[in-house]
């Protein structure tokens, strides 16, 4: 199903759309307020964008520097070229340790690699410990947002889910009660865990350490209690120096939720005595995206989700309408690089309003890349015949003023004189909920000629 088909379904419940839109707009406004409080916010974005551009141009060197330093710290470093390799490496580590119960904190990379179903197929239990992630996990759904995974669920829906899966009492969607119940349940999972998997927000080349940001402290709970910690990162998560964290951490939390700092910015540098720490560095299509000049800067993304919160289409169509691991504007420029045909409707799920590029903390020109993907998609992916013929013919006509004007006149004549049922037929998507403009006898061209004549 295309984005527009899924969005149409989502829009059948207008009250829910309004609620979804308002919830995310509230986050966007929090972000605005937080950014306003920092002097030089725009300069901070410039600097971050420059550092990321430098990283993408020197990625090989920084990755090797990071690996060497991480190894010096006693971390075991693994390289995976694909999602399959990533999953196999993790399973191998877990199998060697005889780990059965795994706790996982938020990681979009493991979503991208479909790690949970893979490990479950091997008989392991994986529990997502971020509350939002946990909700979508028990609902057997993918996250609909990268920072707020269960933003598409109302508290009443969560109430029902918890009754079914945790045996909670009906509470009418009392957030305090539901959160406490989830905490109780997750606490046991933390205590029983044989291994903890986390994502990585920033991998620091000059120290070989990495930083994981959470608001719930669940990454720390998992990593500190379990004897094995496996951190998974895409190759683009590198920053050159630890000092650069001062730029990125300030931008990330404010852009994501409007907080001055994420509640837990946890620095992992070396395994605890007797424990193991692994890092899996994953490519999975990223070097290919890096090779595409027009789209390489999409790899600068720090996964703050600000482009989703600001996107008027995302807010009104929900994350699942994108049918991709990363939804929203940034996902719409990343996903076509992975599977152009499957994701060919995504770059068109935008009015190119440019708000995404304006909020992006690393200044990715998202809306311009959407435009560029469109040009490639109509060439490489089979297009609906009628749409293609209409647009190509229009292009031909636009270079022929006399014909173009003649046709414009006939169209106007039709609009003026054809009966309403013909104009507002099923074929007219415009007219389903909108009136067409009222047309007059003359166009501007004709008016101008008359005026000239009478001068």
């Amino acid at each position, binding site marked *: 199903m295309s984005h527009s088909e899924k969005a149409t379904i989502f829009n059948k419940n207008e009250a829910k759309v309004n609620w979804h839109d308002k919830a995310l707009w509230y986050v966007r406004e929090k972000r605005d307020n937080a950014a306003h409080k920092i002097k030089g916010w725009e300069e901070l974005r410039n600097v971050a964008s420059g550092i990321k551009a430098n990283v993408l141009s020197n990625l090989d060197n920084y990755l090797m520097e990071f690996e060497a330093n991480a190894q010096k710290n006693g971390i075991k470093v693994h390289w995976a070229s694909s999602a399959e390799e990533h999953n196999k490496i993790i399973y191998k580590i877990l199998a060697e340790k005889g780990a059965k119960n795994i706790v996982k904190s938020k990681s979009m990379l493991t979503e991208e690699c479909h790690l949970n179903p893979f490990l479950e197929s091997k008989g392991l239990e994986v529990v997502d410990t971020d509350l939002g992630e946990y909700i979508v996990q028990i609902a057997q759904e993918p996250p609909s947002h990268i920072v707020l995974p269960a933003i598409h669920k109302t508290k009443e829906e969560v109430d029902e889910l918890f009754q079914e899966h945790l045996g909670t009492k009906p509470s009418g969607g009392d957030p305090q009660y539901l959160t406490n119940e989830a905490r109780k349940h997750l606490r046991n999972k933390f205590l029983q865990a044989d291994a903890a998997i986390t994502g990585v927000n920033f991998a620091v080349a000059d120290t070989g350490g990495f930083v994981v940001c959470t608001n719930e402290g669940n990454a720390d709970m998992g990593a500190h209690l379990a004897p094995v910690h496996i951190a998974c990162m895409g190759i683009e998560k590198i920053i050159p120096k630890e000092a650069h964290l001062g730029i990125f951490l300030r931008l990330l939390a404010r852009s994501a939720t409007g907080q001055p700092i994420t509640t837990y910015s946890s620095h992992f540098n070396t395994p605890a005595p007797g424990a193991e720490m692994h890092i899996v560095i994953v490519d999975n299509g990223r070097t290919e995206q890096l090779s595409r000049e027009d789209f390489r800067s999409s790899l600068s993304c720090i996964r703050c989700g600000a482009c989703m919160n600001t996107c008027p289409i995302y807010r009104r169509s929900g994350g699942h309408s994108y049918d991709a691991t990363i939804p929203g504007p940034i996902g719409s420029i990343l996903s076509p690089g992975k599977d152009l045909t499957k994701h060919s409707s995504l770059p068109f799920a935008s009015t190119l309003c*440019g708000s995404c590029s304006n909020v992006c903390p690393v200044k990715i020109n998202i809306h311009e890349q959407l435009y560029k993907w469109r040009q490639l998609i109509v060439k490489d992916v089979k297009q609906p015949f009628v749409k293609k013929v209409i647009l190509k013919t229009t292009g031909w006509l636009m270079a022929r003023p006399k014909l173009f004007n003649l046709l414009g006149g006939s169209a*106007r004549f039709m609009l003026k004189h054809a009966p309403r049922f013909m104009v507002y037929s099923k074929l007219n998507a415009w007219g389903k909920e909108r009136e067409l403009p009222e047309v007059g006898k003359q166009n501007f061209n004709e008016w101008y000629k008359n005026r000239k004549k009478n001068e």
Partner: protein
Amino acid sequence: MKVGLFIPCYINQLYPKVGIATLELLEKLGVEVYYPSSQTCCGQPLGNSGYEDDSKGACQLFVENFKEYDYIVGPSGSCIYHVKHHFDILEQTPEVIRVRNNAYELCEFIVKVLGKTDIGASFPYKVGLHKSCHGLRGLKLGSCSERMDAHYSTEEDLLNNVKGLELMSLNRKDECCGFGGTFSVFEEAISVKMGKDRIQDHLDNGVEVITGADHSCLMHLEGLLNRNKQPIRVMHIAEILNNSL
């Protein structure tokens, strides 16, 4: 100063009154205006749909039509943005570069080139300004709510000087209306919902007339207003600025 008047294709056919207001307004301001009659379209509908290559003929024709003028002025931010930003698909001859550099959206031309903000108009109504995205974020006609820059707005500068006009404040200052060219039909459900939400914001703030520098957005909003029989009119900013009582 010779100005070539660019009237976007849909304004030519559907909203000639906007073209007329633009022409009259420029003439009132003492500008020598020419209208090349063999103009068609800037090519934007094709480019935004992914058929940029098929629009090269239209772009080339645009350059041919307007290459001899000191300035090219049009009452549509998004079309002008397309000329300035997306005519990079043509070979960058001196003519192409000249046309791209000298293309101006109407309000920007009045404020920046002519240096005028008070043009003696009067319009005693409560007006809501729709800041169309391509004009705002593309041409930078004003500061954007996402960015932490000092506030400015080319259209507000003009409207605030119109006698009797009360510019109403909106809850969401610059959210997209959902037109988006072919987006309006290929993503019909979202497009309509975005438009309805924009209109509600204007209704909630007591707006009588919605105006803006891009009539394509206004056409979309007007289509919804007329279907739902809501008590707001739309008028292009040129029509308001050309209005004197």
